[in-house]
């Protein structure tokens, strides 16, 4: 009896999980479906069966070059993530293992920078970028996205590091490990799931960031977010073409997320059952 109840509960939970997943994934799925429809089909109403045309992808590619914004997205997302990790790992280490009275305040202050609407600092940022020659450069965008996502990276790493027993680091210190060796050879290997998930999440955030990436670029450093924006038309509802452009833009990050889902889930639930 108990086993029957347990099996039923498991089945219900599984079905519920699939339903929730489908609801969350549906907008993306529908975008992909719409990209294979003709424009009249796309506007006609909700339908899950497209005619299967590839003309939107051909049209999108003929109107704009996909490769350049794709490479810009890769460079900016990966670059900003690596720099953020380089800064955040020592910062999170010091706050997790050598906390002071002000550590919590510093963490809160870091997070508070995320609370200000980005548009509030658009003009000062634009002026700084103009004067330093960083407008429409990958370097400039990489720096901005590093700073934009740094609070989240520090917070996530701080949470993971706090799960690692401080005694292990003490033991390493007693064995004569230097600070560098302690972080690189003891702490980092233990925190790899957390670092990996932070890295993946940060790449996703940087890949999808559209406020700064559209406003601080023109023709040279514009990533895929600007590529999508260029297909929004004031003269007609070209939903199928827009869907094809969106599918091309999100496909790389979706594939990456799919293949690294184990690391992502492992990292995000790290210490959750403690």
């Amino acid at each position: 009896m108990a086993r029957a109840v347990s099996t039923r509960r498991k089945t219900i939970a599984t079905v519920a999980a699939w339903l929730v997943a489908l609801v969350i994934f549906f907008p993306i799925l529908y975008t992909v479906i719409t990209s294979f429809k003709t424009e009249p089909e796309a506007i006609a109403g909700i339908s899950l069966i497209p005619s299967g045309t590839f003309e939107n992808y051909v049209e999108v590619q003929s109107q704009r070059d996909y490769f350049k914004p794709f490479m810009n997205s890769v460079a900016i997302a990966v670059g900003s993530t690596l720099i953020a990790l380089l800064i955040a790992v020592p910062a999170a280490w010091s706050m997790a293992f050598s906390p002071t009275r002000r550590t919590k305040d510093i963490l809160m202050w870091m997070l508070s920078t995320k609370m200000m609407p980005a548009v509030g600092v658009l003009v000062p940022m634009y002026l700084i970028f103009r004067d330093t020659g960083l407008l429409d450069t990958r370097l400039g965008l990489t720096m901005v996205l590093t700073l934009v996502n740094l609070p989240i990276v520090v917070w996530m790493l701080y949470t993971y590091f706090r799960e690692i027993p401080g005694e292990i680091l003490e033991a390493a210190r007693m064995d004569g490990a230097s600070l560098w060796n302690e972080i690189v050879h003891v702490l980092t290997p233990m925190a790899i799931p957390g670092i990996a998930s932070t890295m993946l999440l940060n790449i996703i955030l940087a890949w999808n960031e559209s406020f700064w990436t559209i406003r601080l670029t023109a023709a040279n450093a514009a990533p895929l977010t600007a590529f999508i924006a260029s297909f929004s038309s004031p003269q007609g509802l070209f939903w199928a073409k827009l869907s094809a452009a969106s599918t091309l833009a999100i496909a790389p990050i979706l594939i990456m997320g799919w293949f690294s889902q184990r690391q992502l889930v492992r990292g995000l639930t790290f210490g959750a059952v403690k």
Partner: protein
Amino acid sequence: MKLRTYLVGACSALALAGAAHAETLTIATVNNGDMIRMQKLTDDFTSKNPDIQLQWVTLEENVLRERVTTDIATKGGQYDVMTIGNYEVPIWAKQGWLLELDSLGDDYDVDDLLPAIRGGLSVEDKLYAAPFYGESAMIMYRTDLFEKAGLTMPESPTWEFIGEAARKITDRNADISGICLRGKAGWGENMAFLTAAANSFGGSWFDESWQPQFDQPEWKETLQFYADLMKDAGPSGASSNGFNENLTLFQQGKCGMWIDATVAASFVSNPTDSTVADKVGYAIFPSKEGVDNHGNWLWSWNLAVPAGSQKAEAAQKFIAWATSKGYTELVAEKEGWANVPPGTRTSLYSNEEYKKAAPFAEPTLAAMDAADITKPSVKPVPYTGGQFVAIPEFQGLGTTVGQLFSAVVAGQSSVDDALAQAQQISVREMTRAGYIK
């Protein structure tokens, strides 16, 4: 062998030097059919000007407006050519943000530009932007539905006639709305239509001393007429319909009439996209009986050179090419006369081939000729602009008022409440901005 190597090296160096010498123009533009077509035809320009390369930044209209405004206000210098509307041109020119277009070439024929369009792009008789395409507004209606209902569109229709006709054509069972009008909030969306409509009802945004006029009977009559009409004969969800949504509805045969930008005529009469292409008639923007005003809607997308550009000469060369008669002929040769950018040059409307290919040519010209943005209202006003008020504050104020009026169509607010709030907000904003002392 050695000599050949040296020669190849020298040629490569020369080629590199040549490439380094080539100027690259960055052009910011919107994603619409005419602009995309221009991007495809630029080989013609670059082959004639091998020392100039072009790179494009294409953005959605509102994002583009925000981007170029930030760039030009901060002298960012990101763009060498900007696509801007006739709302921005006089404001930016007075700020000293745009270069005067004074070297478009001897064969440019600036006098061929439509006077109304040219006037909107000039400050003190100096041209600050060249029009790429222009538009006014007019009625597009279904001739088959009119015939079925026993209606004949008058040469100069009144709002009273439009109201009666729309209600008569409406057939909810057949999913046909008598009229489709903009309801989506925004200074360039519902407020473009409502500002022009208020002009044609005898109203205005401000009086001569910049006092807002929403408490006057003309605005009450305009908004009440619009709200009642949308309720009786408009499509469902009209409060979220803008130009694009109404275009789709009309093309699908779901609207009896549509009053909007003249540029839509080429889309609704194109059999590839429109199911009613051969059943569309055109008429001038309506007015209230006894009021000699057809809204004065006039819009153009224009190419301008920001004052910060280091490549002004090359930029003007490109603008001269893109807005010339030669470009019109190039489009006609490659894509047909019906696809040439409309509404900028007088000569286009005397071209028999164009008139033959574009049945909407004459009504478009009539609509543009009827628009006078220097006298938007029958009352004396201190501003210019037809479907907008050419002051920097209008973008924000127009959008706020647009939200109030959109709420009326959505049934969330009454006409009186919306007008009272619009009046209150406008007085406050105009006082803050220093117009009202």
